[in-house]
Every structure is written in C-alpha cells, then in structure tokens.
C-alpha cells in the first residue's frame, strides 16, 4: 500500500514537472524578453532625446554659419574683389572664415554622431520587433530559443548605454576644412549666377 502511494506520488510529480516545467521555463523566458523589451524602450527614449538635442545644436551651428557667410559677402561686396588673398586682409573676412572652418568641423562631428545614434535606434527597433515576435512564439509554442537574441540585445545596449552619458564628439578630433575652399564655396553661388 505504501509502495503504491509512493509510486503514485512520484508519478504525479513527474507528470507535474513534465507539464509545468516547460511552462516555468517559458514564463521565465517571457519575463526575460519583456524585461529586455523594456530596456530597449528605455534606451530608445534616451537615444531619441540625444538625437533631438544634437540636431538642435547642429541647426544652431548652421544658422551661425549662415550669418557669418552673410557678413563675408557684405564685406566682399564693399571690397569689390573675389581674390582670397586680398579678402583675408579684411579682418572680418579672415576671422569669419576661421569661425566657419571651426563650425564646419563641429557640424561634421555632430552629423556623424547623429547617424550613429540613428543606426543604434533602428537596430534596437529591429530587436524590439524580434523580441515581440519571439514572445508570441513562446506563448504559442511554450518555448523558444532566445539566448542569441538576448545576447545581441545586450551587445547593442552595452554599446549605447555609455554613449548617452559621454560627450557626443571631441572638438580636438574634428576635420578641418581649408579656409580658401570655404571662401570659394561662399562666392561660388554668386559666380554660378553669373
């Protein structure tokens, strides 16, 4: 009698584990996926804010460049010359060209970073979609291999989490355009009309 009881208990336990084990595992994976999806959403929010901020700064710099170019054109009109060497004798033209050179570098750095963040955002979006799909699969099939997905998500998150806190670019590592080229580009539209 006792043996029967023990055997039946063991059998019931095994059946329970067989039935509930996968359920437990799927719940765990579901939880983990949901957690990763939340992390992705949070990261995407951070990236969006960062992108918006950087684009705002970029636009401000572009406006400054436009203002400086207008000043150069005004000075140039009074000088009645298109020669770069003659033009830079005017201190306003010389200094404005240097400022535009600096701002062009900053704009380039910001542009590169914007595209980098946007790539990250889209990648995370891709993984978010995949996680959503896998979640549905788990719900349907009670199991799904998600380790690789989790690892990929973690990789992207690990790449961009530090990016949110550190500076977007280093002013000492920006490309520097030649001021003569800048001058020619400024006066070029006027030549093109001619």
């Amino acid at each position, binding site marked *: 009698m006792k043996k029967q009881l023990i055997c039946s208990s063991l059998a019931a336990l095994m059946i329970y584990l067989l039935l509930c084990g996968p359920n437990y595992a799927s719940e765990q994976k579901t939880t983990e996926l949901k957690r990763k999806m939340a992390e992705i959403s949070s990261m995407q929010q951070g990236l969006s804010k960062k992108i918006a901020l950087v684009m705002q700064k970029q636009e401000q710099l572009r406006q*400054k460049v436009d203002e400086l170019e207008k000043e150069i054109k005004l000075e140039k009109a*009074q000088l009645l010359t298109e020669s770069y060497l003659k033009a830079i004798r005017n*201190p*306003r033209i010389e200094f404005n060209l240097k*400022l535009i050179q600096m701002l062009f570098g*900053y704009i380039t750095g910001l542009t590169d970073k914007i595209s980098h963040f946007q790539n990250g955002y889209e990648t995370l979006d891709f993984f978010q979609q995949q996680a959503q799909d896998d979640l549905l699969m788990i719900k349907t099939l009670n199991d799904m291999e998600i380790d690789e997905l989790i690892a990929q998500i973690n990789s992207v998150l690990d790449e961009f989490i530090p990016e949110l806190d550190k500076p977007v670019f280093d*002013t000492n590592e920006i490309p520097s355009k030649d001021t003569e080229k800048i001058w020619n580009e400024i006066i070029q539209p006027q030549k093109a009309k001619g």
Partner: protein
Amino acid sequence: MAVKEEFDINDSKASELSSHEKSDSNDQTEIIPAEEDAVEPLIILQDEVVSTEAQNESGKPDSDTFNEVEVPPIPDNGESELLSEETEAENSADPVDEQKDGESDIDELEDDDFLGLDDAEFDAEPPEAPDSSQEEVLVSQENDKTEEKPEKDNEPAENQKDSNDDDKSSVKSAKKSKAKITIGTPSATQKVVGLTLLLMVIAGGAFYMSPALLGFHREAQPVPLKATAPTPPVQIIQKQLASPKPLSENERYQAKFEDAGLLRDELLEKKEEIYRLKHHYQNGIADLEDQINRELQKEGITSYRKALENRRIELNLRTIQRRRSYIHGLEKPARWIKQGSEELLYLKRKAEFDLQLIDIAGGIDMDRHMRHLGAAIQKYRPSAEKLAVDRENTDLPPLETIWVHIRKKKKKTAKALPTVTDREIIKEICTGNYERTAELTSMSAAAAQCLSKKNGSELFLNGLPTLSPAAAKHLFQWRGSWICINGIKQLSPAAAQYLFKWEGKWISLNGLTEFPPELATYLMEWEGKQLELMGLRYNKKNADQKALKYLALWETMGGKLFISDDVRKEIDRVLM
C-alpha cells in the same frame, strides 16, 4: 499705642518707665537706665527670660519679676563664652518678641535708659534683624563702652540714681534679661528701617534692570554680526571688478563676454570718433581748397610759384598739408582699433560657440578661451600711447603736390565720405524735401531708404560716383519710371542685382565704362524698356563677347539699348 521712632533722651524716664510698665502688660521689655547699662555688662540668661515672662503675665512690676541670677565671672575672652551662654539662653527661650507689640518696643527704645545701644551706636550700626551675632556685638560694645556715656544719657541717669539705689541690684538683673530680650527682638523702628532698606534694594535692582523707569536709557549695544567676515570698505565700482560673491563658471564666462563686448563697443566709438575727425579735416581741406580756388581766380594765378607768393594761399596750402598729415596719421590708430574690435568679436564668438556645445562635446577648454579673451582685452584697451599719432615720422606731402591736386580737383570725382552738404541734403530728403536730390555726391543706406519714398517718375542722381549694395537695396525700391545715375563708373554685381530688380522702365548708366558678364546676367531678369550705356567702350585687348551676347539677347527680348557705335558694331558682329 503710637509708634515712636525717635528717642527722646530728655524725657523723665522714671515716670515713663513706670507708666509703660503698667500700661503694657504683655510687654516683656523694660527701659533700663543708661548708667546701669554702661557700668555693668549685660548678661542675659534663659531662666531670667522665662521667669520674666511668667511674672509679666501676672502684671507684677518688672523689677519684681526678675529673679536674681548668679552671673558667672567674665573671662578674658569671656565675651564669647558669655555670649554663647546668652545665645543658648536666647535660642532656647520662646520667641518673646513675637508676642510683643512693636509700638512698645519703640517706646522703650526712645528712653535714654535703654541698655542696648547708645545713640551714636544705634545710628552707626545697620538696622538688621537681630540675630545671635548681632547680640554678641551689642554685648561687646556695651562691655567696651562702660565708661562712655553721652551727657544726655548721663543726666537723666544721674537724676535717677538717687531714687533707684535700692532697687539697683534687682533692676540690674532684670535689665540684663530684658536687655537681652530687647536686643534679641527687633523693634518696630528696626522693622520699618529694615523694610525700607529692603524696598530700596528691590527698587534699586528694578531701576538697574530697567533704567527707563527713571528716564534713563542704556546705550544701544552693538548687535553681534552673524557674518564672520568684516564688511568691505566702499570702493569705486568698476565694470571690471569681480562680484564679492563667488561666481559660477557660467557667470564668469558671461562676465568676460560682457567685458569684451563693452571694450569692443568702446573701440567702435573711438573708430567713429576718428572717422568724424578725419571727415572734419577733410571738410576743412575742401573749404581751404575752395578758398584757394577763389583766390586763384581773383588774382589770376595759374602757376605754383606765383601761388606761393600769395601769403593767404601759402598758409592755406600749409594748413592743407598739416591736415592731410593728420588724416594720414589717423590711419594707424584706425587700423589698430579695427583690428582690435574684430579680434575681440572673433574670440568672443569662438568662446560662445564652444560654450554652446560644452554639454555635449568634449575637448572644450573654456579656461583657454577666457585667457585669450583676457589677453585681447588687455591688449586692445585704448590708451593715449596706443592711439598716439607719430607726428615726427609722418611724412608731410609736399606743397606742390597739394597744389597739383587742387588744380586737378575739378576733374576728379567727389570723395566717398559724405560732405557737409550731403548731410544737409540727406536730412532734407528724410524730412520730405527732395529739391536738392540731384546734388548728392554720396549715398548711404539710410539716405536711400528715405529717397525710396519719393514721389514722382524721375530720379536724377548723377552726382553719385559709386553705389554700395546696401544703398542699392533700398534705393531701387523707389517706385518711379526713370532713374539717372550717370556718375557711376563701376557697378558691383551685388548692386546690379538690386538695380535690375527695379520695377522702373528707364535706366541711364552712361557713366559705366565696363559691363562685365556678371552684370549682364542680372540684366536678363530686368523687365524694363530702356537701358542707356553710352559710356561703354569696347576693349579689343580684353574682349569678352559673353557680355555682348547678353546685351544682344536682351534687345531681342524687347528692350531698347542705347550704346556707342563701336559697341553696336561689335554686337552686330557677334550676332552674325
């Protein structure tokens, strides 16, 4: 019985003594003759006090109530022993004084036969509540002053001696006991005095604490400062002085930017001053040249030598020479100021751009910007030294050169600087008076803006030698039909851009000697009817057919071109 505060030593004490003794049955004290007080020490024993109380209650005379008590011999330092005995007796005895009536005490004190104190001693000693120590003092004083008697005390005592000899011994003992009792219990006067003194002390304390009660005011005590640092002395406020409060970094940067901006404004003001000064000298030179010309015409002088012989002409020439040197000398500070203002602007802008990105970009060193700005501010702060004109090294133009210039001045175009006349005319134009518009020799953007509001179909500006793009932008908003600017020899592409956007029909540019392709491209946008370019000259060496083509093209589009024959032939040739 009324309280008597003063002792009347002249009173007859025997009758009073008896009357007092009789009237106050509760009174335990007796007035003792002074001579007896003075002669023998006062020894008070407790038993006497108790027996005295008992006897007094029965109404018997006090003299009968006192029992004879053996007095122990007085040792050398016996006062203390005696006093200790006395004090013991006193302490153990009932507080007789509590039963007393204060009035009776005072009555007894008034009598000269009071054993305790002499008048002088009574006045000298503080009227304190009697205690054992005071009683000892009183006893010792009495012992010390056995032979000292005031005359007043002695007289009544002497008078009573004869009558009271028999009762002397018994009275002595009674006196002693009563004296002790008398000393131990404060009389009414003493109480009053004590109370008065106490009140005085309390009042004194009250007045000290609040002197305002008496009408006095304490000096205002200085309020202790909470700040540990002393207040700084008054200083002349200067824009460059830092705020006493520690500034945040952003505030520090903004302060430096402001300093740079203020200095730049100062430099621009100085630049304007120099410009006005140069213009003043220029106008002065123009006036002198007119004077010379008038003099030349009047005297019929044509040569330089003859001109120098004329004192007035010579002095005017020298004045022109000096002023030209001044104008030339002002170039250096003007250049320095312009360089300074532009450099300050550049450094300020550079720092501001970096500050704008400091929250998202790395590698920005704002301290370096501040250092550069500080150095520039230091460098370009105007001073007499930096703005000085070097008169010694300035080359004076020769008089003959000036003479030649004057002779050729009529052929030359007017100076770009607005003359006094121009300013007046512009003022008139801006107030709506366009009568002297044709006399203008220079055009500023502001003047052009005023002129653009002129009504009418014609505008003659043949006195203008040049036209800036800024002036062109406003001038060619004038709504008219015909504009004449035949004085212009050269037109910039920027000015041409505004000219050929004018909505008028007829342009006279007969002073133009060159018509480059840049101008021709803008011409293609013009919807006018007639263009006069009679001053164009075809340059064979530098022939540019592109402009001719544009001119020809414009004619085919409906415009009418007035050009010289040479140019017409070239255009025809290009079209063929």
